[in-house]
């Protein structure tokens, strides 16, 4: 079984400041890792994903995340946030073996940008 921990339920950040949203996971098998964003009254949109290869992955809207296998982490970062980044961010994992379809989500981090 897999589990995902997002320790910060809410993160307030001033506009143009950097931000890091933390994600740690637990799994007995190798996994793919994802960050999804949910803007107010909208569905889940994929920000970025890690499948294999380079541990630093870049996504949409200037976000990036780094996979750290030894620390079982996949923290999301952005060097300078905008008001439009206000949203809920979800980290998720999925076993990489074929046939296992279930995405396991964390509880989410609400990012609030302060003007």
């Amino acid at each position, binding site marked *: 079984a897999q589990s995902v921990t997002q320790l910060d339920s809410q993160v307030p950040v001033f506009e143009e400041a950097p931000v890091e949203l933390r994600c740690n996971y637990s799994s007995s098998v190798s996994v*793919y890792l*994802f960050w*999804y964003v949910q803007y107010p*009254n*909208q*569905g*889940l*949109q*994929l920000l970025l*994903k890690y*499948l294999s290869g380079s541990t630093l992955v870049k996504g949409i809207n200037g976000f990036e995340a780094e996979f750290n296998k030894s620390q079982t982490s996949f923290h999301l970062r952005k060097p300078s946030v905008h008001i439009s980044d206000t949203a809920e961010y*979800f980290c*998720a994992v*999925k076993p990489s073996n074929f*046939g*296992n*379809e*279930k*995405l*396991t*989500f*964390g*509880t*989410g981090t609400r990012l609030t940008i302060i003007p």
Partner: protein
Amino acid sequence: EPEVTQTPSHQVTQMGQEVILRCVPISNHLYFYWYRQILGQKVEFLVSFYNNEISEKSEIFDDQFSVERPDGSNFTLKIRSTKLEDSAMYFCASRGKQGGTEAFFGQGTRLTVV
């Protein structure tokens, strides 16, 4: 850009009534999913569907729930006799074939059971 669409966006139903939540996945996708998010809680997996049958389901997905792909475009979730605790946001998702590891989500249906 292709997207997953869900209807209705909000459904209110009385306890004990049957509801059907509808989804139109991205065309040519082969894997289909339902997830739910109870207010203030995490997004939870309900069921995955491939090749016209359930491939995996969670313990939440009991006999009150069923899924169907009645034609080539729709994917539905039926709750036979709704309970208050079924109130949640329900998300449909779809995924393409081999190599397409990401699931695309719809905007969700907010189900309120009163």
